[in-house]
Every structure is written in C-alpha cells, then in structure tokens.
C-alpha cells in the first residue's frame, strides 16, 4: 500500500496526539530548560543539503562550482574548492563572481521558454507543440534540403563551443554538409592572433599575476569581465597582500578609468588606440639604456638595438600617446627594474583598427624582462589532454558576419535556407549598421535552441528550448587554462524544471532520424555517452587528479571532483622573441567625441540582462543599476550644460542615434563618451525588456586591419543635449551617509 501525503499527515497527527496524552504525567525534561525566546527560525530548520560539483557557464571562463541542492531545488552556488581555475591555494576555497552567483536565477527565471514551440504561419503566433513534432519538423526540413542538394544552405550558429559539444557540432555539420559559425560579441580574435605571433601559441596563456612584482595592464579589464576574472581576482589578492613584506605594484593604462583601473597604484591615460605606441616607446627606453635582457633586446630589434626603435623616443611620441615623456620613462624603468614584471593587454586596446599592432607590441615587452614562461610572468597552457578536443569550435571573426549578412540579404552566392541558433544572440549584439536582423528575415526557416526568448529566438519559426547549464551534461576546457591540463565537467544538479531537452542530445537524435552517413558519423545514444567516451580516454591516461581501477569509479570520481586535471602536464614552450612591430595608428571616422563601449561587470555584453540580481548589481564606478547611461567628463558636461540625468542624444558617424542619461564622471577624460553594453533588449524576459539602450547599435562596423575582428572601440560620435532629463537609478545616495562623508545638500524651494 502506498502511503499518500494526506494519509501520512493523518498518521503523524495521531501519533503526536498520543504523545500528548501519555506523556502528560510529568513535565518533559527539555521543558524545564528556559528556551531562549530570541531563537530565530534560523536556529530551527535542519534540512539536508546536497552539494554537486559542476562547471559555471555564465561566461566563457569555465570556473568550477558547487551547487547546493535541497529537496531537488538548486539554492546557492559556491566555488568548487578542488577546481584549479578559481581556486585560492592559501584560503583553500574557490571563488565566484557576481555573474556566477546569479546562475540559479537563470534556472528559475519566470520567463524561461517552457517547451518547444512552432510559429503558426497564419497568425505569426508561437504555439506549443511536442518534442516529437518539433524534431520531426526540423528533420523534415533538413532532409528535404539535403535531398535537394542544398545542405550547404544550412547554417548552425552557436557560441564558441569547447570540449565534446564542440566535437559533436563539428561532426554533425561535417556529416550533414552545412556550415558552423560561432558568434562572440566581444571577440578575442585579436588577442589569439597576438598570442600566436608573439609566443607561437594556439592557446591563450595563463597570467601569473599572483607572483609578479610589477604588472602593467593596457586596457584589459581583468578584474571585471576579461577572460577569467575570478582567477585574476584571486591572483590580484595575492599580488597585493599574499606575500610576506612584499606588495606587487599595478599600473593600468587606458583611455577611461575602468573598475579595474580604479584599483591601480598608477592609472595612466592614453589616447584611444595608442597603447601599442606607448609599449614601443617603453621598449625604446629599456633597450637604449641596456636594461633589457640582451638576447631578447637583440632579437626584438633585428640586432639593431635602440636604432630600430629610434622613432619612438618618449619626447617624440608622448604627445601622440597623450602622456608625458617623463611618465613613459618612469613606466619603462620600473617595468625593467621591478622584476618579475608582467605586461598584459586586451579589452579596448585590442578593439581598434590597429588592435593587433597594440597587442603584439604590448606582449613583446615581456621578453625584455625575461617574463616569458617564467614565474610571475606569462605561463603557457599545454594542448588539450585528448587530441582534437576543441577549445573554440567554429569561432569566426567579424568580417565573416559581414559576409554572411550580405549573403542573407542577396541570396548570393548561395542563399541560406535554414539557420539553427544556439547560445548566440547576434541580433542584439551585432552593430545595427550591419543590418543583420533585417537580412535574417530572408531566411525561410529559423530554429532556436535558446533557453530564454532573446532577440534572435524571437525571430525563430521553431523553438526547441535547451536545458540551462545546471540541468545538463557537459565538459569544458577552460580557456585560458591554469597552465596545466584541465577538463572540467558539468552535470545536471537538478531535474529539468521545464519541458526542455539537451542540445547535444537533440543533435544526436536529429542525426539518427536523418539516417545515412549522418547517423553513422554520430553513433551515440545521448550526449552523456559522448562525454563518457571522452572520459574513457582520460581514464586510460591513468594519471592526473583522478585515477581509478575501473572506468565507473573514474567517472564517479571526475563528477565528484568537478573535473580532471594533471598539474604535472604544464605548457613548457620557450618561444623566441620576434622583431617588434612597426608603429600603426588607429583609424577613426569623423565625430567630436570618441565612443568607448565597455562590458558591464554584471551584464557583460547582454547575456546577464535577464537576471534581476545582475540588473540590480551596481556598476562599481557609478553605482548605476537597471539602465544604460553615458559617462561624460566634467569639462565636456560644463561645455554642453549637462548635469546628471540630462538625456544626451548620441549620434554615431554612421547615422544611428541613441538617447541615454548623462553621468558626469569626475575621472572621465575630456572628449570621451563611455557607455556600458548589455541593455536595450527588445526581448529577453520581463527584467531585460525595454530597458536602457543597446550600445552595440551605435558601433561603426569597422574591423581590425589584419584579423578582421570587430573594432568596437573605433567609433566616433556627436553629442547633443536633448533638454529632457530623468533621475539615474543608482545605489549611491540610497543610504544616508552624512556620517561617512559629506552629503549633498538639496535645497527645497517653492514653485
């Protein structure tokens, strides 16, 4: 007999009553004690919690997490103390960031897509259908296109895929004959190319900030969203106070004071796009004074010494850079003397038409001080432990999206008949001037695997919602890794909350139903099987953090620990210095002000905008929340007669125009308008929709000269005071702080 809930309660009630009757003869012992009447319910609840190791998917860093699950519901995310990427070796805990913490809100988001849907042709409405119907529709269309010999008109657009999901997508697209493109809004194409040219490396290196004595960062927001911010945050703590009687010095060089720059001992202004020239000038000082490593100085200058760099004498270039010759000299001398020293660059320094020049010049500096492959410098990552596992499957630079837009719009050379989107939202995050959204309307059939109804999914004809990362299997190769081999595992920590499926599983199912060579190429039954087949290769290596007598124990082991790593397998490359690049200046369009978009610390380029915790996370510098604002210097604000909250009309050189309230920022340099990315969603659930403006819309579709990546910091704008105003919602001023600092006095007058 099954005990129903009602019956169970009835039985419980009966026995409780019995206890009262028979226990009534004397006062129970525990009632003699006077219970503290101040006991909070916090003292009373004793639920049992389970902790599952997994991998965070809120940004591409790939940190290890532990998820606290109570009664089948995910409650809280902490760092996985075992995981090498976000581990603090001194405190024995692993760390997380604001975005990682908010993962549970994605899982339980009220506006998640709850099941598959198909657009009704007559009404244009999305109507719920079953998974079988949805898959049959997709398979039917793929089969029809393949039979017509038009399989090359099928396009799969994803985020850059890593690990076995990347492998699966590669197999699928190859066997079907379609095309795969991975979209990355703030692409790291330039950095990858620079690392390849300077260090001959295919994988991004690890930055040993923790053991450096001197760090100079050119535009890289490594304490905000750049690459692996939690790892760098942990290292930054050690740089400052992790060593006995030694405190690392940190210089940030950039055209606007970022939250990362706010932490610098010395913040140096540089004109947008002039970071590389500053690096060359520093190299001149170091080489001409003989302070650099001899061999490196010789190789970097083609054996010509300071002569090779004679055009970059501080007194000659300081004006172009926007600083003083003394400052350049000071930076160069400190960088050469306070070893181990480390020069890193990225962010806006890479996002100019001369981005590759900037980054190659910056990273080459590390050779001069012997920091390449050394403690406190640049450490390299080894190749993945299993050959062929992708770290960024399908990643393409911005010009390919330009090309695709042209193809979508004209149908030439070949039309696109079907697009599948997964984890990518190019409709929001490509510059409006490109016309991607309009061109996409020409595609007869669009399929989306999105978890949330984002702008791209809103255009889809068929929606097959996938699990969130907390409900799905997966693996990941953190990029950049921690300097040694790591494969991180992701497991479902709760049962699917809605009627969603795994993207990997669906690829396999679709391949099976399509049959033929595709089914042969993908012989598995589920994505978990693919992962296990991959894990078996790790098991057979019989080394690293998990070794076991049999595969089942090995599999349990990697899931318990959240991954597999081998600290003995490090990247040991010893690349040789190559000649320093020759000066290249950035190119801008006309416009009075320089527009510097920046990734919001909580929303990044927009993926976090759906989550209310992240919307309510104050921007570190302005404390602004829930909206977009435009930072303007006090000088320009006076010139335009603008005060906080006045709406500015910002018009890009390509004619697109947005309005955003002004935030006169005391640290903003004149001539620069800085705006956060991430808002301006027309579709992404109740917390994101119709809020702020989409800064991507303003961008000029300019590309970096060689890599053809989007030069997102190369747009110029004009600014006009509209005369309208509203209050900026921000945390500053929310609490009365007259005791802590001077409070602004508001005079209330009549009328």
């Amino acid at each position, binding site marked *: 007999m099954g005990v129903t809930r009602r019956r169970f309660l009835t039985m419980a009630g009966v026995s409780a009553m019995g206890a009262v009757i028979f226990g009534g003869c004397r006062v129970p012992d525990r009632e003699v004690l006077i219970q503290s009447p101040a006991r909070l319910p916090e003292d009373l609840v004793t639920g049992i919690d389970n902790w599952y190791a997994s991998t965070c998917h809120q940004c591409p860093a790939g940190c290890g997490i532990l998820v606290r699950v109570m009664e089948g519901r995910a409650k809280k995310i902490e760092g996985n103390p075992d995981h090498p990427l976000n581990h603090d070796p001194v405190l024995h805990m692993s760390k997380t960031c604001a975005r990682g913490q*908010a993962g549970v809100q994605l899982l339980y988001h009220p506006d998640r897509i709850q099941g598959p849907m198909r657009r009704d042709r007559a009404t244009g409405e999305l109507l719920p259908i079953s998974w079988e119907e949805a898959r049959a529709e997709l398979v039917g269309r793929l089969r029809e296109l393949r039979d017509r010999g038009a399989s090359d008109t099928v396009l799969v657009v994803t985020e850059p895929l890593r690990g076995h999901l990347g492998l699966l997508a590669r197999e699928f697209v190859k066997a079907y004959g379609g095309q795969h493109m991975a979209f990355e809004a703030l692409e790291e194409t330039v950095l990858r190319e620079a690392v390849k040219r300077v260090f001959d490396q295919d994988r991004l290196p690890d930055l040993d900030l923790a053991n450096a004595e001197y760090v100079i960062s050119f535009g890289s927001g490594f304490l905000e969203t750049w690459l692996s911010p939690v790892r760098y945050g942990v290292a930054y703590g050690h740089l400052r106070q992790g060593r006995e009687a030694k405190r690392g010095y940190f210089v940030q060089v950039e055209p606007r004071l970022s939250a990362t720059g706010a932490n610098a001992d010395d913040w140096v202004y540089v004109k947008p796009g002039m970071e590389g020239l500053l690096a060359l000038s520093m190299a001149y000082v170091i080489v001409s004074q003989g302070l650099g490593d001899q061999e490196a100085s010789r190789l970097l200058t083609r054996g010509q010494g300071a002569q090779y760099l004679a055009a970059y004498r501080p007194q000659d270039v300081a004006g172009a850079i926007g600083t003083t010759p003394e400052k350049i000299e000071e930076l160069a001398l400190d960088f050469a003397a306070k070893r181990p020293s480390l020069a890193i660059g990225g962010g806006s320094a890479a996002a100019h038409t001369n981005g590759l020049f900037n980054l190659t010049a910056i990273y080459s500096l590390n050779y001069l001080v012997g920091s390449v492959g050394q403690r406190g410098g640049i450490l390299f990552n080894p190749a993945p432990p299993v050959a062929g596992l992708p770290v960024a499957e399908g990643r393409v630079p911005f010009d390919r999206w330009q090309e695709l837009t042209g193809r979508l719009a004209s149908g030439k050379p070949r039309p696109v008949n079907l697009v599948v989107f997964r984890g990518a939202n190019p409709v929001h995050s490509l510059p409006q001037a490109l016309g991607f959204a309009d061109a996409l309307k020409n595609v007869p059939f669009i399929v989306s695997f999105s978890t949330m109804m984002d702008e791209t999914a809103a255009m889809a004809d068929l929606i097959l919602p996938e699990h969130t990362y907390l409900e799905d299997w997966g693996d990941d190769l953190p990029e950049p890794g921690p300097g040694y081999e790591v494969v991180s595992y992701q497991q479902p920590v709760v049962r699917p909350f809605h009627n969603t499926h795994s993207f990997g599983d669906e690829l396999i199912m679709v391949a099976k139903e399509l049959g033929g060579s595709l089914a042969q190429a993908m012989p598995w039954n589920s994505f978990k099987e693919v992962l296990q087949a991959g894990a078996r290769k790790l098991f057979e290596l019989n080394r690293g953090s998990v070794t076991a007598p049999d595969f089942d124990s090995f599999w349990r082991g990697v899931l318990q620990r959240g991954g597999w790593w081998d600290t003995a397998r490090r990247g040991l490359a010893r690349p040789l210095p190559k000649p320093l690049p020759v000066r290249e200046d950035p190119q801008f369009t006309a416009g009075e002000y320089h527009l510097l978009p920046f990734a919001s610390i909580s929303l990044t380029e927009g993926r976090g905008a759906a989550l209310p915790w992240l919307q309510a996370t*104050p921007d570190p510098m302005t404390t602004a929340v829930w909206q977009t604002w435009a930072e303007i210097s006090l*000088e320009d604000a006076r010139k335009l007669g603008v005060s906080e909250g006045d709406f500015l009309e910002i018009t890009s050189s390509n004619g697109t125009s947005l309005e955003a309230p002004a935030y006169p920022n005391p640290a903003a340099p004149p001539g620069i308008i800085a705006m956060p990315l991430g808002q301006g969603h027309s579709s992404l659930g109740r917390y994101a929709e119709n809020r702020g403006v989409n800064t991507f819309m303003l961008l000029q579709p300019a590309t970096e000269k060689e890599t053809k990546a989007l030069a997102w910091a190369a747009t110029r704008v004009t600014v006009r005071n509209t005369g309208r105003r509203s209050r900026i919602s921000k945390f500053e001023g929310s609490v009365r702080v007259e005791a802590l600092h001077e409070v602004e006095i508001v005079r209330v007058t009549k009328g």
Partner: protein
Amino acid sequence: MVQERPKHKWTMVVDIDRCSGCQACVVACQAENNITINEQRDFLQRRAKEWIRIERYWEAIDPSKPAEFPNVKARFIPIMCQQCDNAPCEPVCPVYATYHNNEGLNVQVYNRCVGTRYCANNCPYQVRFFNFWEPVWPESLRNQLNPDVTVRSRGIMEKCTFCVQRLSRARRTIEGRRGKRITDESMTEENLMPACVMACPTGALVFGDREDPKSRVNELLKEHDPRQAKSVAARGYRVLEDLTTEPNVVYLKKVDPHLKKVKAHA
C-alpha cells in the same frame, strides 16, 4: 543536563588593499539571504536593500586641487553591519527586537520587530534596511529561496547577520554532531563561511572566531589591529571608531604608494 556551549566571538576583517570592488559579495549575499529583488523603483525611492554594499569614493590625488580628471582616483570600501559590541541600534529598540548575543553578534529578531525604524535611524553605518513592502517573487523564482533563512515580511527591519544560519549549521554539524571545535578549516570545508566571504575573489573579506587562537582573523589582528600591534605597518582601523561603537568588523587600510609624495593628510 545543560551543556556549556563553546565560546565564540565572530569577527570580520576587511582588507581594502585587496578589495577590487567587483560586487561578487553583494550578489552572493542576496542569493543566500532571500533579499527581495531590488527593482529600479527601489533604487529611485532609495529603498534598495544591500546588506553588504561597495561604497565608491572619489578622491583628489593632490587635495589642493579639485577632484577632476586627471587629478582623481576612486576608492572602494565594502560596508556591512559592523556587529558593534556597543551598538547604537540596540538601546533604542522599544521591543528588544535587536539585541546582543554572547557571540558578539548584533541580532535582529524578526518576530519581535514592530517596525519603528528607530534602530536604522540610530545606526551610524546605515546598514539597516526596512521592508517597505510585502516581499514578492515570481512563483518560479521562489524555488531558489534558502530554507534556512526567514523571508522578512512588510514592516520588518533587516540587516547583515554574518550569515547566522550558516553559523548555527556549523554549531549543529561541527560542534553538535561531530563534537569538534569550529575552526576556519572546518567552516571552509563545509561551505559555512558567510556567503560574501566564500565568494570574494580577492580574499578581501576574512571571517573567523576570535576565541580560536589559530584563526586567520586573529593572525591579521595581531599584525594590524592598533590595539594589539605597535608596528608602523599596522593597517587596521574600525570605521567611525571615535563613536565608541566597538565594531566587530576591522578594516585594513589601502596601501597607497603615492600618498607620501603629496602629504595628503598633512
């Protein structure tokens, strides 16, 4: 038989030289403590609740000139309830909803609170937050709520508790079930350090027991607390110390290598 509980004195040390202002602690706190969603209107009405917040100060590099580019720098400081031993919020509560427990915590008893807001008015650190509305979450988001933490209803005052639910869990599991002392290690291992401390990437927030001689807070205080250390390198201070509130949160000053050059506080 009444067993005597081991003594604790909970203390937080905040190293501002490590803090990067990244807001991880702020979101971690909201995730752990069932704080209602701070909507845009809450910010506009200045009623947003952040038990821990990052304050950002603009400072002039050369104080004789205005703090404007390029003569300006920004500073971050995390502020949460300072768990004062001599708390100004406690004596003004007419119903004893806020009282001091024997572990150094300033405790808010929600079911005593009648919402006079005297305590918030009297708190020099402005870390007490009032529930002006009934707490509301969309149905599905309620699945995330932490069952160890009470949801505060309208008219109730709330504030940082040093994650008292985690401390009681530590008492139950580590002291109670296993009969061991609560140490830095055992709390870390069981994920029972306060949520902000667990998240803080730079390790700026350090939490521990001052009754445990081996705890990290004790080590840091020995080195930095001006009441214990006489070294010139001691960086410790308490916020608004001259009010004699005796906070249990000790801050370690930011190191600014350029400060001497301009004689900022001459």
